[in-house]
């Protein structure tokens, strides 16, 4: 019973912590992300198990986390507001060729990140970018000038 409560608290605390970390440009998992994943994952599991290392406890916690994840995914699909809270909203980084400093500074996105996304989109240079959008998963979509 206590483990279930700990699992619920752990899930939402982890969700909050991951959510308030800035979206990393590029969206892929880097070495730095692995440090976070392993360390936070390892620490939270110790507290959640609450000294009960039985298979029964492990199964109950896995089911609880599964249910929570399913519920959050369902809420996201039903309400755009929940989706915005959990995943964030897309943000325009480059508007008609001009960088939006407020958004880029707050999201810790550099011109270099936009340059990388520009090349990945097979656009030769920044001055040919009409729009660049930071997506919810951290990737940058580039729309070239016509």
């Amino acid at each position, binding site marked *: 019973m206590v483990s279930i409560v700990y699992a619920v608290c752990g899930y939402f605390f982890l969700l909050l912590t991951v959510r308030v970390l800035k979206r990393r440009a590029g969206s892929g998992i880097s070495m730095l992300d692995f440090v976070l994943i392993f360390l936070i994952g390892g620490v939270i599991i110790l507290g959640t198990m609450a000294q009960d290392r039985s298979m029964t406890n492990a199964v109950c916690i896995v089911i609880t986390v599964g249910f929570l994840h399913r519920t959050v995914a369902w809420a996201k699909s039903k309400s755009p507001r929940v989706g915005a809270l959990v995943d964030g909203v897309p943000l325009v980084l480059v508007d008609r060729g001009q960088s939006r400093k407020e958004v880029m500074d707050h999201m810790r996105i550099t011109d270099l990140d936009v340059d990388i996304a520009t090349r990945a989109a097979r656009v030769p240079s920044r001055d040919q970018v009409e*729009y660049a959008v930071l997506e919810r998963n951290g990737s940058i979509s580039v729309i070239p000038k016509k």
Partner: protein
Amino acid sequence: MSMSASPITRRVEDDVPRYNDEVAVGEDLEFQRKWWKFENAVWVFFGIIIVCDVLGVFGRGWLAKAQATTPDRAVVLSYERMERAFTPSILDLEISQNAIRDGKVTVFVSGSVVKDLGAARISPQPLTSTIGNDGYTYVFPATTSPATIQIALSPPSAGLRHFRVQVAGSEAIEASVFVFP
């Protein structure tokens, strides 16, 4: 051969708000500005938690350490007023010469020390231990002061816990401990 039912479909609608009436982005900058403020508040809160933890507000630190003494200063009890569930700590009972009688010290600890605070080990080993009066009475061999009895604790659950310790010939010491989950 029966035909399988065709799946339910609905018309695709472009309901994502457009940016500059051109790109369907669905940006909500007002929401994002509020979120940035919320993010900053969360990190300030997290910072406060770290500082509190370093100071011992959540146990195992400077602010968690507590001492209680009998009026005649025969017994000094050192403990942590904030404990953590399943985390070991030590409760020290320092006995002065006044409390040593005939080479023995008799100590009563309430049952909550074992049940709520998870007393796992007592050092040194008592000569005798007796149950009754909602607690345990231990008799230790002793020579001269300073003499210290240590009780290793590991609370099994969270909550506010009260306990009582009394050395024969002195007044009882009552204290409370908050156990964090």
